[in-house]
């Protein structure tokens, strides 16, 4: 009996493998057919179809977090300020709901003047400073349970002295406070009455001030948005935005080839990218802020407490080959330093040179002539993590360092790292594009993992604490940048963090889509996806 089951199973596995190999031809066959039909249909009603990789259950911006949810929320709500759409430059932040703003001289009080005549969707009246005050207080209220509450720990109170004026009083000076009131996460302004009216269904009844109005949500199928004719920046060009839930990447590829889907997410692999580039109806976009990947070396435990060992590791990894040959130049680039280049205050201190001979010499000096075996490291089974770590493992082996790995589930991996169980922690991230966020979370003493205030300082590093605190209150941008530069240079000198690769978000759109912003290019995105705004259009 068991024998028969074994045989049947093996044959089934083989059949599945062989058959799924065959589907490749079928896919490429559909490329030529029935392409015009889909496009003409969609241009008639001016509806754009977007592929979503999964459900979007939390459409309250103070809770929305995965890419699908933030993509939807982005079209419905506004914040006080925003990046120019399609970019992420801190110094070019512009008004969204706010007309203008100012801070006092020590950056402890920030005043925002709202635009007049901004209408809430679905007849909830005009936006006032009271709405803004209530919205932020909602995020800050522990009872709300918003994951972004900690972002506003520094806010002492919010005042609404006039109908169009909001004042934030801070506990500590914060020169980069604008990042907290962006049209992103907790900075999105919600309507008190609409949320109260929705009752239990507030998560799926979003009412905002943005270019599109939430129409319907059918689970496992789609989310439909219709245009907001009274949008304060002008009537949107698209009638409808239809976000279809498609969990199978191959199905998305076929639908985009046919023209049934206009916007979708790509896969960051050179082979996949090259294959998609063959279809001339598609445009591939590679956007920043890139995920910066690197390994954090725990300087508090042997053998990594020896700077020579850390330096040997830093020089042993050939990241140029990895970026150019493995991930590919489209989806990845060499890291520019320990803070990603697009962030405000990034000093571009550079990555470490590949010099295996120097590594071997340093190891010899440190007394590991015959080789060094590191303690076992945990690594996530997620391919984006595993691939990099297996590459690092091989590179270290070539200079005589053995790094045993143990694969664990992704959530366990992060939990273990935060419990200080990894001496070499691989981490890839995007943060609010400002040096302060990165330095505070990863290189600031109080953020050391395993401590009560711990965040993600896996290295147990505390040598630039003073500089970070100094820069945080520095309103003069040039001076602040100078301090940040000093901190980043010091971090590089201490060999506690080895930047490896910056991977971009890969996005795919059909060529008939006119994004309507930034000369039809998307260079930066905070939502890991395309922005859809009032100027986004479909061309014939």
């Amino acid at each position: 009996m068991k024998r028969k089951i074994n045989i049947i199973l093996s044959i089934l596995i083989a059949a599945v493998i062989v058959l799924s190999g065959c589907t490749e031809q079928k896919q490429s066959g559909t490329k030529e057919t029935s392409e015009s039909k889909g496009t003409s249909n969609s241009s008639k009603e001016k509806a754009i179809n977007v592929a979503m990789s999964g459900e979007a259950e939390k459409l309250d911006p103070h809770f929305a977090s995965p890419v699908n949810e933030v993509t939807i929320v982005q079209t419905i709500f506004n914040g006080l300020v925003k990046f120019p759409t399609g970019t992420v430059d801190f110094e070019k932040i512009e008004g969204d709901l706010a007309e203008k703003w100012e801070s006092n001289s020590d950056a402890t009080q920030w005043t925002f003047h709202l635009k007049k005549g901004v209408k809430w969707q679905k007849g909830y009246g005009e936006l006032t400073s009271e709405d803004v005050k209530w919205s932020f207080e909602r995020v800050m209220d522990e009872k709300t349970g918003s994951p972004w509450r900690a972002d506003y720990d520094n806010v002492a109170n919010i005042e609404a002295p006039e109908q169009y004026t909001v004042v934030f009083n801070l506990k500590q000076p914060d020169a980069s406070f604008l990042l907290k009131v962006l049209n992103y996460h907790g900075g999105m302004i919600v309507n008190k009455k609409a949320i109260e009216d929705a009752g239990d269904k507030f998560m799926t009844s979003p009412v905002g001030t943005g270019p599109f109005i939430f129409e319907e949500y059918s689970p496992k199928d789609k989310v439909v948005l219709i245009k907001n004719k009274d949008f304060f920046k002008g009537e949107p060009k698209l009638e409808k935005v239809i976000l279809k839930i498609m969990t199978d990447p191959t199905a998305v590829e076929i639908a985009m080839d046919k023209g049934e889907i206009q916007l979708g997410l790509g896969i960051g692999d050179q082979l996949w990218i090259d294959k998609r580039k063959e279809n001339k109806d598609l445009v591939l976009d590679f956007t920043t802020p890139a995920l910066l990947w690197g390994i954090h070396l725990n300087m508090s435990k042997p053998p990594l407490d020896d700077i020579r060992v850390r330096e040997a590791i830093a020089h042993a990894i050939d990241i140029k080959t990895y970026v150019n040959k493995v991930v590919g130049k489209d989806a990845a680039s060499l890291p520019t330093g320990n803070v990603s280049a697009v962030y405000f205050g990034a000093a571009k201190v550079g990555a470490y040179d590949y010099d295996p001979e120097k590594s071997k010499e340093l190891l010899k000096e440190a007394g590991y002539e015959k080789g060094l075996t590191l303690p076992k490291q945990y690594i996530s089974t997620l391919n984006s993590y595993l691939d990099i770590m297996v590459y690092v493992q091989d590179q270290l082996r070539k200079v005589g360092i053995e790094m045993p790995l143990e694969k664990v589930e992704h959530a366990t991996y992060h939990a273990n790292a935060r419990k200080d169980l990894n001496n070499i922690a691989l981490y890839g991230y995007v943060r609010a594009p400002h040096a302060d966020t990165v330095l505070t979370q990863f290189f600031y003493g109080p953020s050391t993992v395993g401590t009560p205030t711990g965040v993600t300082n896996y290295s147990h590093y505390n040598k630039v604490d003073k500089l970070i605190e100094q820069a945080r209150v520095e309103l003069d941008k040039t001076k602040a940048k100078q301090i940040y530069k000093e901190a980043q240079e010091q971090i590089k000198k201490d060999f506690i963090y080895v930047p490896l690769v910056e991977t971009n978000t890969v996005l795919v759109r059909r060529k008939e889509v006119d994004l309507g912003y930034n000369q039809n290019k998307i260079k930066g995105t905070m939502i890991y996806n395309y922005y859809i705004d009032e100027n986004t259009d479909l061309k014939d």
Partner: protein
Amino acid sequence: MSEPVMKETLFTDTSVPETLPEVEQSRKNVFWSVFKKSKLGMFSLIFLLLTITISILAPIISPYDPINQNAAERMLPPSGDHWLGTDAFGRDILSRIIYGSQTSLLVGFISVLISSLIGTALGMVAALKGGLLDDILMRILESIQAIPMLLLGLMLLVALGSNTTTLIIAISLGLTVSCARVARGPTLELKEKEFVRASISYGASTFRIIVVHILPNILGPVLVMATLHMASAIRVEASLSFLGLGIQPPHPTWGNMIQDGLRFLTSAPWVAVYPGVALMVVVIAFNIFGDTLRDAFDPHIIRERK
């Protein structure tokens, strides 16, 4: 999970004849003639011997280092240099399959050895002693059996940490149960035979009864079972490695090679397909070999011949 029960009934009706010298002789002859007659059985035997030889000689015959990465030779299709192509890290797939066979066969062999030894011993003792001991032992084993082997492996590996030892323990534990049942059935029957009762009446120890009378007579079913268990063990090892548990990178196993290649199935199918084929062929070979072995041990065939 009714498979082992069925197996038990399969073997319990194999009423074991008393081992007279000429029967012994004829059984040997029949054994070989069955093998010679079954082309498939012979072929699988030769294939398995070849596989074992290849895995032992892996360091000599594999063309490349199985863990050495080479970014410049990433994802090459099969060619003269790399007969089965290269994977996402530029490692030679043929070499990795050859080294992977070491892992599969070794994990399979050790866990089958452990489970057969412990399982058979438990089954025989339980059957001979009977009573409360039998009840308790069999209920414990049945409760283990209630958990599917893959799930048992998953739980143990997560609880005790992912490494080769835990992997072997997990697979052995799962297989021990059916071994015990296979040994228990025929033992219960043998216990009632005159030569065993005579032995007991002479005051022979349990150990002696087992070694002299029981073991030689149930060796056939146990060997068949062990061979079939090899196939299961290899399959479970591959499944667990596929899920990222057990053998850790960079060491190749067929399971983790299939996992590595799965996402490139449309662009570079060779990465996943070849280890899949290797796994399939070896599992089928063990099954066919076990099947033929069972025919060869089947006493009914001897009688038919006589």
